[in-house]
């Protein structure tokens, strides 16, 4: 999607290019098998993230992970888990098109997110992720840096969440 990048000095908002996304449900005892299939050690505790190049994994429930891979790798990831199915029952759902990712970056990034997110963002360490809520819309929030976040939002909620962030950024720009 070629959405415009809006930016003032303190915070910018951008819509990121598509990635392959998966929702994985698997018994925690079989996590090693999932890690082998995905080519990345999946984190074991809710909130933790792991990243290596294009591949990323975030634990968002007791037996639930959000996986990211390069868009072109989608079929390969599905095929790898298809092989693992012989050893461990699990569910791998391709959710690449279900969500869009908004990048929020800059010294005021966390402050901008507080417009719709009730979390104490200082409690989310860099590299971690959390499913939460942004003004009634469920989102997954990923912290990439002190001043850098990604918000993954379901497509149908995107205009609302993106619009709110843009409006708030404009208010920041005029000094509210």
């Amino acid at each position, binding site marked *: 999607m070629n959405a415009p990048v809006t930016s003032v000095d303190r915070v910018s908002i951008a819509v990121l290019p598509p990635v392959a996304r998966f929702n994985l449900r698997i018994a925690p005892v079989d996590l090693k098998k999932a890690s082998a299939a995905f080519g990345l050690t999946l984190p074991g505790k809710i909130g933790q993230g792991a990243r290596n190049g294009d591949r990323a994994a975030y634990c968002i429930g007791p037996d639930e992970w959000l996986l990211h891979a390069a868009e072109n790798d989608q079929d390969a990831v599905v095929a790898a888990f298809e092989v693992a199915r012989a050893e461990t029952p699990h569910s791998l759902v391709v959710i690449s098109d279900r969500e869009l990712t908004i990048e929020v970056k800059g010294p005021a990034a966390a402050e901008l997110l507080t417009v719709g997110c009730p979390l104490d963002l200082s409690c989310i360490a860099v590299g971690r992720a959390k499913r*939460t809520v942004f003004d009634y819309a469920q989102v997954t929030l990923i912290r990439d840096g002190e001043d850098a976040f990604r918000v993954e939002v379901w497509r149908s909620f995107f205009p609302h969440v993106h619009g709110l962030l843009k409006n708030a950024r404009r208010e920041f720009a005029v000094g509210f």
Partner: protein
Amino acid sequence: MLLIHCPYCDDTLPELEFAYAGEAHIDRPKDPSALSDEEWRDFLFIRTNVKGIHAERWRHINGCGRFFNALRDTVSDRFFTTYKAGEARPDTTELEAAG
């Protein structure tokens, strides 16, 4: 806003991430057709409506997705503890004695 501790996430988080789900520890009858209409009515609708410490279900719907149980004072809204689904209700005799 209430802050609620999710026993699965092991984190204390804003109420907006959670949904209330009614009184806890109400087992579905194993053989519903063996029940009288009154018993079935009681199972479906009759709750303790306690004034004081209430065991209740919550779901961390905008988080890990799990149902869990909580002990909350219905007068003060204070949460005493939360615990995983399937665990026994914690003993609250002392709490109740303390009023």
